[in-house]
């Protein structure tokens, strides 16, 4: 072959580096069109528009970022506002409402129409599905919250899809690695990347925090949570618009796992230190008890907030920097500044993606280690 191996790597690397820009390329075309449209308008109109447009654009950008941060029933890569077309693909909606209802989310047409399934009507309102009548009436209470019935929703949404995808990817990767050990002690192919990471979790996280004797039982959880969070963080960096670890429900669930594993594997000493702290006077013991009980809850709370806030903040910063192109006045200067900053933050975000996965695993193992470690009775307490 003419193309030797090395240039191919370089080409792939460049292609991957440019990939994130494509998802926004279409939107930037739109803004260019709007600008040329402005030029055609008369001077008075231009003046009027210039006052109104930046505000409008800012609102639009705000709405877009908000929309991106939320879960949705379909993948929308970009939308053509003039023709009202959305490009992407739909995901299945699964509702339990007098029996199982399964249909494609394309029936909603991105919330613009009412979906009719077996004589029941459903309407999407602010990203949630409500039961409604043929006309799609939504009733509100005083606080302008819809009072319509919400059917039980088990849909394969964007986040669920991403998690399933990641899980299957992890299964393939690690079953392949496990199989390769049967043939020879040194893994082949992609396993060579995974083995040092697994060793890193074991040597740097599990053993120092949990202890030589007891770490094995928790390795499964620590490895799973590390690779799941890391891969989901990295998936969030792709232009697919996935924001799973920036969804507070997901991080709450992950933190609950850590919480329950910690509580259920805790030994006698741990509980003794919570309910009846040894070595302090009795009044102090009574004061310390509620504080310690609260302390068990604040630890996983900090875990879930940290992951959620870090990833959400990263997404918002990147989206806002890209939005600079649209709210700025001069495209020629805004474009390079915006792209440069976005590239810079993206590189930092790749680091953060790893760091947050590492910290989640690290603190989980720290909490588990606190609960299971043997107590050293060097002093009186």
């Amino acid at each position, binding site marked *: 072959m003419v193309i030797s191996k090395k240039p191919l790597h370089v080409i792939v690397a460049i292609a991957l580096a440019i990939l994130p820009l494509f998802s926004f390329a279409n939107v930037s075309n739109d803004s260019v069109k709007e600008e040329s449209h402005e030029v055609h308008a008369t001077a008075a109109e231009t003046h009027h528009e210039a006052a109104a447009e930046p505000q409008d654009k800012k609102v639009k950008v705000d709405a877009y970022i908000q929309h991106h941060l939320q879960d949705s029933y379909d993948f929308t890569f970009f939308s053509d506002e003039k023709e009202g077309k959305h490009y992407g693909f739909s995901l299945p909606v699964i509702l339990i409402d007098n029996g199982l209802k399964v249909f494609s989310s394309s029936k909603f047409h991105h919330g613009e129409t009412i979906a009719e399934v077996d004589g029941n009507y459903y309407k999407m309102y602010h990203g949630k599905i409500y039961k409604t009548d043929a006309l799609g009436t939504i009733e509100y209470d005083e606080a302008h919250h819809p009072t319509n019935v919400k059917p039980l929703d088990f849909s394969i949404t964007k986040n669920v899809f991403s998690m399933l995808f990641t899980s299957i990817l992890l299964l393939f990767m690690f079953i392949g690695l496990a199989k390769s050990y049967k043939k020879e002690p040194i893994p082949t192919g992609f396993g060579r990347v995974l083995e040092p990471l697994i060793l890193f979790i074991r040597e*740097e996280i599990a053993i*120092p925090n949990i202890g030589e004797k007891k770490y094995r039982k928790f390795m499964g959880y620590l490895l799973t949570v590390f690779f799941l969070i890391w891969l989901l963080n990295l998936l969030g960096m792709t232009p697919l618009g996935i924001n799973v670890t920036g969804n507070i429900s997901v991080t709450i669930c992950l933190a609950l796992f850590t919480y329950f594993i910690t509580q259920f594997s805790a030994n006698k000493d741990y509980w003794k230190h919570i309910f009846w702290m040894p070595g302090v006077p009795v009044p102090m013991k009574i004061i310390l008890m509620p504080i310690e009980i609260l302390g068990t809850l604040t630890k996983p*709370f*900090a*875990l879930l*907030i*940290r992951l*959620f*806030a*870090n990833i959400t*903040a990263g997404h918002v910063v990147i989206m806002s920097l890209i939005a600079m192109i649209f709210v700025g006045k001069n495209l020629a200067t805004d474009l390079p500044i915006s792209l440069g900053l976005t590239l810079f933050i993206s590189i930092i975000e790749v680091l953060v993606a790893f*760091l947050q996965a*590492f*910290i989640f695993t*690290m*603190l989980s193992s*720290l909490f588990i280690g606190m609960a299971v470690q043997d107590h050293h009775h060097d002093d009186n307490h």
Partner: protein
Amino acid sequence: MEGTLNLIGAGLVVIGAGLGLGKIGGSAMDAIARQPEAAGKIQTAMIIIAALLEGLAFAALILGK
């Protein structure tokens, strides 16, 4: 008015977090300079404490929002 106060609060949180992170980072640098052979352990401890601080700062930002 409330939005402005929120922003001031967010600024205060960031100042606090910045001071804390600076202190942690500076102390870790000192420690590593004194004992380069313990750099790995110091870094791990540094990251844990920075993460705890960051969690606090983020909690304040989110609750204040």
